[in-house]
């Protein structure tokens, strides 16, 4: 984990794809359809908030530097949210 705070602008498209796979693997992100999505609550934002809550991060619902840093830590492959 770098002590330097990574400026937000540095989240790349690759990071976003990494984050999406992370949320699928560990927080049961599924490709949802339906009213909630149409109202703009993206499943990814929802799952990001759940992940941030689990790890005690600031709950922003968006892919910020802290969240990405936590996702990149070495970890166990068992999901954090059981189906």
């Amino acid at each position, binding site marked *: *984990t770098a*002590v330097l*705070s990574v400026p937000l602008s540095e989240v790349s498209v690759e990071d976003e794809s990494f984050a999406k796979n992370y949320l699928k693997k560990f927080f049961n992100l599924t490709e949802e359809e339906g009213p909630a999505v149409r109202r703009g609550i993206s499943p990814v934002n929802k799952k990001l908030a759940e992940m941030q809550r689990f790890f005690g991060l600031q709950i922003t619902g968006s892919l910020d530097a802290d969240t990405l840093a936590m996702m990149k*830590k*070495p*970890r166990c492959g*068992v999901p954090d949210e059981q189906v």
Partner: protein
Amino acid sequence: ARFSIYGRKWQKRSLTYRIENYTPDMSVAEVDASIGKALQVWAKVTPLRFTRIYSGIADIMISFVRREHGDFNSFDGPGNTLAHAFAPGDGLGGDAHFDDDESFTFRSSRGVVLFIVAAHEFGHSLGLGHSNVPGALMYPTYSYRNPDTFVLPQDDVRGIQYLYGPNSRKDPSVDDPKPPTTPDACDSNMVLDAVTTHRGEIIFFKDSFLWRSFPQSQTPQQSLIRSLWPSAPVDIDAAYESRQLDTVFLFKGRKVWAFTGNQPVRGYPKTLTAFGLPKGVRKIDAALHDVNSGKTLFFVGNNYFSYDESRKTMEQGYPRLVNQAFAGLTRRVTAAFQHKGYTYIYSGPYVYEYDLGTGTRHRELRNSYFLRC
């Protein structure tokens, strides 16, 4: 904040395990010892007993594999996912797989300590899910821990005993070390070990934990000190940042460690005398670097020393009494740091805000003031 379970557990107390193959990273004896020790972590606090078998199907089958390995849950090469395990049950149930693209070690922090990863995975093999308590063994991310001094944390003890009960055969006359707990930032009676800044963050230390408070986020992030600095001490006495050197110094007893970012600085740990402190000083209580004067104050009991960072010498005329420089400060200083031009002196569970130039005290705050409860 607590452990979680799958709702599935073994109905028997005597379980078998089998090591199917080995990683080339460690000797056979080291792998055997790591796996056996990892299972004993759980046996020590439950009625569970583990017997090794060398052929056939065991309850817990242990293997080192890479990428796709037959359970539709492929590994991902070096880093990221280190291992996984399955909840109690037939077939894959209870089995633990270790990603052999990782570099496993017996006890070195230069790789991933197999014992620590295995103990975590065997928690899953016995029915535990992940815990969201930082510092718990069942917390999802890996942190280096010294296998020789490892004690199963309280949250994990609570979790596994929720499933299987305590160790009925434990000898009451033997005092086991108390399971470590994770300090609560909002505990108004908590006394912090040290506080420092580093590259714009404020870092608070307690036991083997730290909280990092970032300028752009509300919630300080708790984690193990060693998840940031694997070679750092725990239960430290003091810490300060030298901005000129872009370095954080951590003090424990007579030794001083130094880190830039999350890299250890070569040549450390050094001794307190390297910072101009007299040989007779065996530990310090707190350290404060004054950005304006470039001096660093070392607090020892009722006294403090002043170290000139640029000349690397202790200033003449010290030690002096703390309450000469800090009005109204009558008790031992436990931590100190500067923030936005003010000096914050921790004493017990309180924080006093001072103008260091005049020594006047502005406010009395609680220790959780910066931890944003």
